């Protein structure tokens, strides 16, 4: 871990070209993005406990560096898709807090008009294809997005995120095989927070000593393991995979080691039973990516404590305002129930008018 006494030159991966190109403003912006995610989620947690948010709420607190660091590398032909712990990725691609918060509240102003909820955020205009609720269900879709990028002759890639709990699903292995066999520009990122819900990695996965990502060897795919506490390391590691996708049209399997401070979801009553309090405290105190980046930037002389406080305060105010927006927004109208089921019906095409599409009542 870096501390304030560690000179910048000793922070690993700071010297990588992709990181050398960052300006002071860029670095502060990355910090701001991570803080915005955390404050958004802290505020959403408060409103979940107040009963304003239904269903599940899978918080990303502790993992913010993964989405922010990797998405900071992407260009116009790069796409992303993830699982249900999707708020961080959404804010990282530029979705605003209002639409994201309103979706949690089930409001008509939500990013999915209240139809998707926490696990199902989408923003195709920002190359963000969800937000998927079934563990590993998104992994073939990620390969499919990469297939389309390649088919259209574009220089781009798809970052497809999954949790360490997804690595034992058949769909994921099928996706890995096809991604390598068909040479698709997809980068699979295992966000390894150590637990598939309440089951530790050791109790759920058989894997080589090098890590989960080493399973890629079986698919003739490049792989790497990255320490997720450091934005520098994430950016340097993911950049290599993005370059491989762009230049060689080859997939990569990355494992980014991270930690969720909260339970699997807010409904996870055992979050402090399958993990010790000491373990959680250790990660919060010594491996928090926001604290790490903050101290790195202070060491580099590009950030002051006061700057950080201002960013923190501003993000909190933005999140509170988003909650206000969500509270004041209307619920969807009942008439919305049958919209967005069929494209042809929504667009009132001849196909949409032929035959009965709905069978209730």
């Amino acid at each position, binding site marked *: 871990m870096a501390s304030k006494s560690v000179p910048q030159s000793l922070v690993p991966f700071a010297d990588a070209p992709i990181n050398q190109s960052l300006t002071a403003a860029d670095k502060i912006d990355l910090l701001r993005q991570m803080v915005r995610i955390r404050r958004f989620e802290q505020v959403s947690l408060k409103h979940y406990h107040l009963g304003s948010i239904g269903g599940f709420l899978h918080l990303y607190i502790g993992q913010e560096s993964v989405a922010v660091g990797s998405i900071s590398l992407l260009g116009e032909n790069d*796409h992303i*898709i993830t699982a249900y712990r999707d708020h961080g990725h959404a804010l990282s691609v530029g979705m605003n807090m209002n639409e994201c918060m309103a979706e949690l509240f089930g409001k008509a102003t*939500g*990013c*999915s*008009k*209240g*139809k*998707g909820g926490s696990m*199902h955020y*989408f*923003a*195709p*205009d920002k190359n963000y*294809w*969800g*937000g*998927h*609720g*079934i563990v590993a*269900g*998104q*992994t*073939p*879709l*990620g*390969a*499919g*997005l*990469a*297939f*389309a*990028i390649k*088919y*259209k002759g574009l220089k781009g890639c798809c970052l497809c995120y999954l949790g360490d709990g997804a690595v034992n699903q*058949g*769909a994921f292995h*099928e*996706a890995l*095989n*096809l991604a390598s*066999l*068909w040479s698709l520009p997809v980068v699979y990122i295992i966000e390894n927070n150590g637990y598939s819900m309440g089951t530790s990695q050791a109790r759920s996965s058989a894997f080589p000593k090098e890590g989960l990502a080493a399973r890629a060897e079986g698919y003739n795919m490049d792989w790497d393991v990255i320490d997720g506490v450091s934005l520098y390391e994430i950016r340097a590691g993911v950049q290599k995979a993005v370059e491989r996708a762009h230049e060689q049209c080859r997939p990569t399997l990355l494992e980014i080691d991270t930690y969720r401070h909260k339970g699997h979801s807010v409904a996870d009553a055992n979050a402090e039973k399958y993990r010790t309090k000491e373990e959680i405290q250790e990660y919060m105190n010594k491996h928090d990516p926001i604290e790490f980046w903050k101290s790195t930037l202070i060491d580099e002389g590009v950030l002051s404590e006061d700057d950080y406080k201002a960013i923190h305060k501003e993000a909190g105010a933005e999140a509170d305002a988003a909650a206000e927006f969500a509270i004041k927004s209307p619920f969807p109208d009942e008439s919305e129930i049958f*919209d*967005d*089921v*069929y*494209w*042809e019906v*929504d*667009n009132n095409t*001849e*196909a949409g008018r*032929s*035959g*009965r*599409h*709905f*069978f209730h009542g």
Partner: protein
Amino acid sequence: MPREITYREALREGLDEELARDENVVIIGEEVAEYNGAYKVTEGLWKKWGDKRIIDAPISEAGFIGIGIGASMLGVRPVMELMFYSFAYVAFDQMMNNAATCRYMSGGLINVPIVVRGPANGGTNVGATHSHTPENIFANMPGLKVVTPSDAHDAKGLIKSAIRDNDPVYFMESTVLYGLTGSVPSNDELEEGELIVPIGKAKVKREGADLTLIAHGRAVVTCLAAAETLADKHNIHAEVLDLRSIRPLDEEAIMASVRKTHRAICVEENKPFCGVGAQISSMIMEQAFDDLDAPVLRITSADAPAFYSPPIEKLQLPDPDEIVARALTIC
């Protein structure tokens, strides 16, 4: 003399024309390219269109169907072949969750213009695992369309509509029908220049005034044979209505025929429990109760897994004799 081609050739023509019309159409499936198709539907297409457009997939349905769904979200128009529709079950999460619900859960920001096609029939002595008829299962899911052509004409016209449709279309064929010939006009015989059959419109295959036989897929052929016997031997004139698609469903055509004949039998090769006929008979009861002169009957496959032994499996599926016998109980 109208042109006669097989159901298989008609499908191939439809696929070929769509490959030519839209460069985003791509065919993916097991053995579709170099092997020329397990059932030869895609024969010659790889040679004509090459590796980019006709792609052999490994035996990995969840993987390649999922890839098709993802690619379709970005504008590719994948036509996925399942060697047997029974294999849809290993891709069920992709077909049921991802293809059907992404549009809804994104509030309409996404659509999934994918076609998943392949034979969905029993009756070929391949045992229970390869004999599933899942049209009712997929039609249960809002967001999906289920299309079931019964002859060569519709096979061509409907596959072209399915590929152009902007929603997921699950296109269920029959290995028993692949070799049957039917009249399919060539494009230069058509005023529009091509054959398109809209999804959601049923077709009266035989007119009659005494009874309506409502069917889809191969059961339409069975019904036509039964109608012939009913007319010849019993002076009962059955109308045969081919649904052509299960979802959307041509409710108007069903009710119009039942109001004319006052009797209906739903015939399908599907299993009875919550089968297509269960839905339709309920609708008839609700909407045309006063027009009925007899209870609506249902004829399905036997309510057991497909029997391997050829003479016994034959007994599991609806046949013309059974339809005639049941018709005589209500006419």
